[in-house]
């Protein structure tokens, strides 16, 4: 950003070494080609990092105060001493223990199924030839454009008819399919799995399922891990559908339970923030540990081929 936007100066070939380096350094003609960012880049990124993280830090601060001390001007910027007290209250108030177990089951089942189904479908689209492949892939991409929320009314009627209200399978079943997952695995397998390996396995007499188990799954493992995490995050954060079919105190997911905390005539703000903190913390931990892989995964899924 700081280096001026001057155009390429003619570089005299085989000039004295120091000048040649000086002229060449800021230009994109340098090996690798990537330009260095200047201070403005760091300032902008710093501001965005603060804006991104501040609400999360503030959640923790608010969760550590008591309610009366939260309503003041200027707002408190320091941690108070009530954190564990509030967390404890929120945990019991919102049935969070059960909610955590529920959400783990829902997100775990969905993520595992999506990863499995997306890998085999992605493999077929990436590496196998069959009639209608192009058209079917177009349909997969097309389904990404259909908003799932527009199907909630018949799904709700179905769940009501089956008497599945407040039961976890009502949340799990509609979330077992992901067009993004199929697309993502296809993108990965196209370049990560050489055709020769599959051919070799087939020449050895392996059936398609054996190829999937012994060749595709090992090759796809890194992408499967990333997709699993992405889908886990997504299902963990799902709100609308679980909100409709699960009650807020009986059998909630974490999001439904946290949303329920704000109810009542005089909601205790620090209690709500403690609940919000508890609901977010597990995913933030996952992010702190696997953030790099998740970032890589999103970027990988974004590139079209």
């Amino acid at each position, binding site marked *: 950003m700081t280096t001026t936007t001057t*155009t390429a100066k003619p570089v005299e070939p085989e000039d004295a070494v120091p000048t040649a380096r000086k002229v060449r350094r800021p230009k994109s*003609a340098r090996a690798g080609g*990537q330009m*260095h*960012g200047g201070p403005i880049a*760091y300032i*902008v*990124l710093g501001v965005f990092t603060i804006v*991104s*993280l501040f*609400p*999360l830090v503030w*959640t923790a601060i608010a969760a550590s105060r008591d309610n009366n001390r939260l309503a003041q*001007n200027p*707002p408190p910027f320091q941690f108070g001493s009530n954190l564990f007290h509030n967390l404890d209250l929120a945990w019991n108030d919102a049935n969070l223990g059960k909610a955590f177990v529920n959400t783990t089951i829902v997100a775990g089942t969905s993520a595992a199924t999506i990863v499995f*189904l997306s890998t*085999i*479908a992605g493999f*077929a*689209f990436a590496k*196998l030839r*069959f009639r209608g*492949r192009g058209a*079917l892939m177009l349909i997969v991409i097309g389904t990404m*454009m*259909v*908003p799932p*929320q*527009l*199907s*909630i009314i*018949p*799904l*709700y*009627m179905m769940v009501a*008819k089956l008497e599945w209200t407040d039961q976890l399978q009502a949340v799990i079943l509609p979330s077992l*399919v992901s*067009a993004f997952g*199929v697309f993502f695995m296809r993108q990965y397998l196209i370049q990560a799995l050489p055709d020769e390996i599959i051919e070799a396995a087939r020449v050895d*007499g392996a*059936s*398609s*399922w054996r190829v999937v188990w012994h060749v595709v799954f090992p090759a796809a493992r890194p992408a499967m891990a990333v997709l699993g995490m992405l889908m886990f*995050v997504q299902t963990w*954060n799902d*709100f*609308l559908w679980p*909100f409709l079919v699960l009650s807020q105190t009986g059998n909630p997911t*974490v999001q439904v339970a*946290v949303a329920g905390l*704000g109810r009542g005539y005089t909601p205790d703000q620090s209690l709500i923030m403690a609940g919000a903190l508890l609901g*977010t913390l597990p995913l*933030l931990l996952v*992010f702190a540990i696997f*953030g790099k892989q998740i*970032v890589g995964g999103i*970027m*990988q899924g974004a*590139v*079209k081929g």
Partner: protein
Amino acid sequence: MATRHDTAAPPAKEGGAAPGRPPVVPTEAEQRHRARLSRRWQRDKRWSPYAFVSPFFLLFLAFGLFPLIYTGWASLHQVELTAPTDMTWVGMRNYTRIFDDDFFWNAAKNTLTIGIISTVPQLLMAMGLAHILNYKLRASTFYRVAMLAPYATSIAAASLVFVLLFGRDYGMINWALHFAGIDAIDWQNDKWPSQIAVSSIVIWRWTGYNALIYLAAMQAIPQDLYESAALDGASRWKQFLHVTLPSLRPTILFTVVVSTIGASQVFGEPLLFDANKGASGGAEHQFQTLGLYLYEQGWVNQHLGRASAIAWTMFLILILIGIVNYVISRRLRASS
């Protein structure tokens, strides 16, 4: 395609995969066995691709396409939440009823304005961020992960935090604004401030995500395009305009479509931003979106048929936007 035994067997002779093995004349039983194996192999090869992709399509049919069509069917009936299986045919009455409802048009307008003030700045900022992240930077992974942290935060948690930050009397944002000489803004009860506040939750959660998608696309642009542009005397800004943006066009289109779909569905943010925790989107319906209006009709007023009509109207609007998008992108492509 007929089963061809001859090509199915591994070509031991030509390939040289098994050098030096003397040709063995198989017995008749062995030949039959081989033929059976190769038939099975052919069948496997032919049908297994369908076996691999069918779970996706079956699940999509059951939980995506069928419900969508059924929603259209239900929208032509009177269906109440209390007895979802009793359907009485009413034709287009649900549609005329909602089109006569001022709250529908209010919600449609709010969805549009919230959609615009959340999507446009979000994508512009994401583009700028991606451009900066594309430079060589120290600790670049750290910025990427930090920027994605809001994506890990749920709508529920984020909305509750933003309610507090946007509080009128003790909210941090009004407190910060008073240093700029701006009087306390009633973020929950005034029309524009409340819509801006709701949009800011969306912007906060999704800007980093979109920035990463743009960044990925930028990194896929061949470097020599920039080199030749630089040699032609293009400034950084010109390079961005004439190399980066055209190369990103498909990605931009993709994010616009996805964000538009997302914006048309906004539900959790306005639901939880409401101080009264109702489905009306504020006391004056000032930030009620179509998603919230659908919920209010279906689950608060218990008219599932009318809610279905809203859902299908939303769907038709999305298709319309999709067509407009397609036409614009074709125009752009043709003009360049």
